[in-house]
């Protein structure tokens, strides 16, 4: 009869085993695993909505600070439009600089979000459940920020519509043989796909927000939720489209950073013209992207008090993912360089002597941040579950991956076939302001967005909780998942 009773109470009121020892174990497991620690959804809804609607003083200070930096970014951009690209430190050999490196970096950051959401969804890994939305928003705003850089980069912004494939009286069509278009098309596809993917998963949460708010908020969420009630038909629809979008978006995700890497690999520039660039960039993007998601998770947990949702197990799982990406990155980087080193062509020698000469501090800092730091620490569960340690490691990885992009773009360009044209590059203030400003812009959009939508996909969490039950096996308790499909 216990079985039947259990089925008649809601999933969050499942009775504990009567054996005291086991009850203790269950309590322990519940503390460890979000999926076993079901609270009444009304409490969780209230928690998420309260955090969403709460605007503390810290929040306003943050918004003002980030807004100020973003304003500096805008002012710098206007100055650059007025006086030309000449205000940057670019020169006649290094024609691409931090703007392009930033594009690569921000696309890279944006990479992991949808990947975590879509690929882990397809693989049915439960640790994605509370993280998915936070990661998807990193994708959206990462891509949006990256999308600014082509506009910042071009010499004549006011003529950029020449690049758009719009029929026109000039009788000219853009040249799709240019790698710039492959990358632009891929980023557009990925951005639109990710937005739709995020939006459909957001619908049930918008309905949740609609049901638990009042006044203007309620009216806004009611419009956005489009009348979602959670009927069988609606859920089934959502399930199917989420699967379709996941399957389509994963190859698109691979194409995005491959496209970005081909901007370089298609050029005859020594150091760029390499077949390994596609996979190498993808791995690098996932590496920095996963690290970025972890940073965001830590900040969200601290600032919004989401300790219930982001637990040690999630940081642990993400840490393992990060370590795998680090290993893959090391492998690709090593493959890239041993081929160059062994080939010993004059140009490749010149690049190597630049890396160990003029650029040595950057080069070694990059290797330290991307190899020594993650691989030396992430093997330990204690490190992976310690938030300060993870924050430091992830910031190191951000620095390392940014340096990698800068070295590839501005560094390699300063060495080319005719030694007469070797010109070193030094950034000037506009690049610094624009780079920092773009980061602030991304953070600002993210900060504001956390106050607009529920940052936790609560329905995914509830689904996991409803499908997980503690099971007694011998003398111990384990978590068991019911597979619905």
């Amino acid at each position: 009869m216990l079985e039947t009773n259990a089925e008649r109470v809601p999933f969050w009121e499942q009775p504990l085993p009567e054996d005291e020892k086991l009850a203790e174990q269950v309590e322990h497991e519940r503390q460890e695993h979000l999926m076993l620690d079901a609270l009444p959804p009304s409490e969780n809804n209230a928690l998420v909505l309260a955090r969403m609607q709460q605007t503390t003083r810290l929040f306003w200070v943050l918004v003002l600070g980030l807004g100020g930096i973003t304003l500096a970014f805008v002012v710098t951009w206007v100055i650059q439009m007025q006086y030309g690209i000449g205000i940057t430190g670019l020169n006649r050999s290094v024609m691409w600089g931090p703007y392009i490196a930033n594009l690569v970096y921000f696309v890279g950051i944006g990479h992991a979000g949808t990947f975590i959401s879509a690929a882990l969804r397809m693989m049915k890994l439960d640790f994605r459940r509370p993280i998915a939305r936070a990661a998807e928003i990193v994708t959206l705003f990462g891509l949006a920020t990256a999308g600014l850089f082509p506009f910042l980069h071009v010499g004549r912004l006011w003529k950029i519509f020449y690049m758009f494939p719009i029929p026109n009286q000039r009788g000219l069509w853009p040249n799709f043989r240019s790698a710039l278009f492959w990358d632009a098309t891929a980023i557009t596809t990925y951005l639109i796909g990710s937005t739709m993917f995020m939006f459909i998963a957001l619908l049930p949460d918008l309905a949740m927000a609609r049901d638990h708010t009042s006044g203007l908020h309620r009216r806004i969420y009611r419009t956005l939720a489009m009348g979602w009630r959670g009927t069988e038909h609606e859920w089934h629809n959502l399930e199917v489209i989420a699967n379709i979008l996941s399957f389509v978006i994963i190859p698109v995700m691979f194409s995005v950073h491959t496209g970005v890497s081909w901007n370089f690999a298609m050029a005859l520039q020594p150091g760029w013209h390499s077949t390994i660039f596609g996979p190498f960039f993808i791995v690098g993007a996932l590496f920095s992207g996963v690290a970025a998601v972890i940073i965001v998770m830590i900040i969200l947990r601290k600032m919004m008090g989401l300790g219930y949702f982001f637990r040690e197990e999630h940081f642990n799982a993400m840490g393992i993912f990060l370590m795998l990406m680090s290993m893959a990155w090391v492998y690709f980087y090593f493959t890239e360089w041993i081929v160059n080193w062994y080939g010993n062509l004059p140009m490749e020698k010149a690049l190597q002597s630049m890396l160990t000469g003029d650029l040595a501090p950057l080069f070694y800092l990059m290797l330290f941040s991307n190899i020594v730091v993650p691989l030396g620490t992430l093997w330990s569960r204690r490190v992976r579950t310690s938030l300060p340690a993870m924050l430091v490691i992830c910031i190191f990885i951000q620095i390392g991956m940014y340096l990698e992009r800068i070295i590839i773009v501005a560094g390699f360009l300063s060495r080319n076939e005719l030694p007469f044209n070797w010109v070193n590059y030094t950034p000037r203030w506009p690049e610094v302001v624009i780079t920092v400003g773009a980061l602030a812009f991304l953070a600002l959009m993210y900060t504001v967005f956390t106050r607009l939508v529920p940052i936790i996909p609560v329905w995914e969490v509830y689904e996991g909780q409803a499908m997980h039950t503690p099971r007694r096996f011998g003398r111990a308790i384990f978590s068991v998942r019911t597979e619905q499909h």
Partner: protein
Amino acid sequence: MAEHKWTMIVDLDKCTGCNACVVACHAENNVPVASEDEVKRGRGLHWMRIERYWEGEYPDVKARFMPVFCQQCGNAPCEPVCPVYASYHSEQENLNVQVYNRCIGTRYCGNNCPYRVRYFNYRTPEYDAPLEQQLNPDVSYRSAGVMEKCTFCIQRIRRARETANADNRELQDGDVQPACVQVCPSGALVFGDKYDHESRVTNMLPNERQFKLLEHMGTEPAVYYLKGGETDVGD
């Protein structure tokens, strides 16, 4: 099919590194003169430049000069990477052409040019009065934000062809002379049509000293260099 294959021969034995060609090019093509500060930042802007390399160790040092300008590649790497067709291969002129009006300044062509002969206008070129009076009306003025490069003085090619058409005759060898060729005091630069069997250029090729710059990249340049230095060139 193109009627002409404009070709330049640079005899490195005859080049004295006097830079007269550079000056002539600036004057003919309205190439802006970069300020001292800009040059220090590595933004010297010359469609034609004399690359100077030192050979040997001190005190046995020799200076080598090599004029480098757009090689007018047959398989130009700069062309396919341009998203707006600002850089393309003109079938009529059989030259690699840069259309300033289309250029939006992505600078991809500049990166992809192994010779680094494409220059970007980082700033709006300024000419103090009365310098604007010396600008060549045949050559368009380039604003900030566009790429530019050597054109083989395409305006002179066209003028010569128009004159020849008006006189009702074919273009002859010597009708077209780019500014650099015209001023070269030592006659190190020779320009002509390689499809014309009588031209000086055709007669000078093949030459045992000939080579093309970065030939291994497969760009098929239209510029031939004649090796200088130890080769015995006779009288």
